[in-house]
């Protein structure tokens, strides 16, 4: 398909929510006379995604990420703007569109709890009209990629969280969708299981050229998988570009860590940038990006430097800092 596989233009969603005062009196009043309020969850965002891209979708809780994801999958109707996914208008939920997409939600499962995952996979194969021999072949292929074997024959309730998520991914990909919407696919998984899911997603994207739009609570997922991120805040698109660009935008300085062979007074470093810490032989400075090379050269010339490290502040701290500045307490992409 030529051109973007996802095209959103001025996309918005307003929810009408009813308001209720706490307590019994509030409940009775709410029953007799309902009061409603319109909440703008997504406020005219525009972006395009090319086929084969892996894009991270970041933002604090309530920023509008899930609402956008649900508009993209066709689950909810946009209040305004235009939307096209895989050449279709999602909300019409035509079968041809639904065969091209999939949605995985880390906190909800589609597999049958009391039965082996294989039984649920047979149901999915039937619903998508995949012949049994072909379904078996696909299951074997995906199971190998996901490192799933006899687990598929055990009742789902007896699997670990990581194994269940891998089985969920298998079920979601059986029909070979070209667009994957992943809403917190590594939620609750331990570090090893997270890494395996990430490796699988990267491998799947490489092998099939599928487009992936991913939201995650774990910054590791985003840094490992997404060359491009969309940062959404209060329903608006704050950033659309690489993580490096976002870091530059949020952090005009880089962190310089020095280890010296002798002791120096703190004032000696004041002219190089902001002194974050100075303890014994260790010094940590924030140096403006534009003067970094020049100042590092002077530091090396002026002091007896044993070790030097230049780095960006952790991205989760930067994003967390941005939303704290804007009055947000909880941040997706923050430290888990």
């Amino acid at each position: 398909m030529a051109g973007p596989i996802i095209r959103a233009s001025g996309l918005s969603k307003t929810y009408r929510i009813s308001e209720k005062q706490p307590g019994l009196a509030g409940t009775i009043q709410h029953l007799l006379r309902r009061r409603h309020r319109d909440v703008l969850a997504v406020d005219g965002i525009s972006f395009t995604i090319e086929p084969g891209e892996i894009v991270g979708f970041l933002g604090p809780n309530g920023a509008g990420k899930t609402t956008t994801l649900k508009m993209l999958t066709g689950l909810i109707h946009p209040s305004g703007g235009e939307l096209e996914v895989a050449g279709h208008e999602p909300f019409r939920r035509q079968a041809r569109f639904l065969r091209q997409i999939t949605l995985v939600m880390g906190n909800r499962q589609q597999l049958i709890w009391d039965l082996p995952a294989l039984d649920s996979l047979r149901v999915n194969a039937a619903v998508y009209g995949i012949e049994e021999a072909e379904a078996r072949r696909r299951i074997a292929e995906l199971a190998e990629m996901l490192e799933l074997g006899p687990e598929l024959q055990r009742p789902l309730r007896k699997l670990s969280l990581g194994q269940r998520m891998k089985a969920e991914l298998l079920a979601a990909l059986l029909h070979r969708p070209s667009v994957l919407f992943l809403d917190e696919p590594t939620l609750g998984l331990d570090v090893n299981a997270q890494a395996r899911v990430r490796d699988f997603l990267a491998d799947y994207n490489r092998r099939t050229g599928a487009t992936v739009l991913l939201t995650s609570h774990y910054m590791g997922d985003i840094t490992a998988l997404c060359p491009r991120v969309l940062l959404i805040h209060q329903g608006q698109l704050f950033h659309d570009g690489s993580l490096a660009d976002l870091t530059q935008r949020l952090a005009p300085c880089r962190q310089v860590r020095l280890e010296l062979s002798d002791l120096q007074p703190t004032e000696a470093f004041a002219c190089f940038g902001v002194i974050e810490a100075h303890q014994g032989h260790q010094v940590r400075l924030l140096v403006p990006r534009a003067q970094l090379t020049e100042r590092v050269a002077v530091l090396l010339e002026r002091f007896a430097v044993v070790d030097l490290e230049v780095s960006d502040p952790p991205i989760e701290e930067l994003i967390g800092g941005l939303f704290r500045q804007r009055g947000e307490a909880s941040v997706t992409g923050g430290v888990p």
Partner: protein
Amino acid sequence: MKRYWRSLRCFWGTSLAAELEYPLNAAIEFVSVLGNLAGSLFVLQLLFAGGPSLGGWSWSGALVVLGLYTLLDGFTTCVLQPNLSRIVSHVQTGTLDYVLLKPIDSQFWLSARTVSPWGLPAVAAGLGLIGWALAQGGPEAAAGLRSLGAVLLPLALLLAALAILYSLWFVLAALSIWFVKVWNATEVLRYTLVAGRYPVSAYPPALRLLFTFVLPVAFLTTVPAEALLGRGSALWAIGSLLVAALCLAGSRLLWRFAQRSYTSASS
């Protein structure tokens, strides 16, 4: 169509396998069916204590009505309750999202995704009671079954009854899109439909009107029973089929409208 048929086989195969993980349920359901049937027969006997006829119905005729009610109750346990109770939990937990994203009719999925074998004792008891009542009533009791056409009519009216019953359940369950917790309403419906255990003419006039025009209880058991007994009128038969078609169309329209209002559960 082939895809729907294969899906249905998979749906029912997997759900039977899941249900059979808990075999104790079968024994409990069997005892429950026997208890219910014994209670209904006892009440019916009390009603007939005053004379040989109840609202113009003989003992064997009334047993046919009770048999049809037991059959429908079994159908409710087998198909309606396990599927439609899930709509409410799908809405509450947000898993309705997965259903709506499947390339298959969502009403079909929600109505046929699972089947429970625990209603089968009631279905068997209902069929047995109808057969026994028709046999007990003598040749005139089975007057409705003398020709092929006369066999097809009760069958068509039974299908209409199933369609009406299904639509009532589905509409109530679909209301959960707006009101989320509506399961109590389906329980109320189930207990109201208990009125279908006895012929509608056994009730006072006001209730007869209610059970015909507001809650179509009359079309669930009394009308098919009359056809089985060879006393069915064309007007009632046409009315029954019409009500069934309207109920099905209404449930379909409501579901389409409900999907537009669906906002999905928050993450």
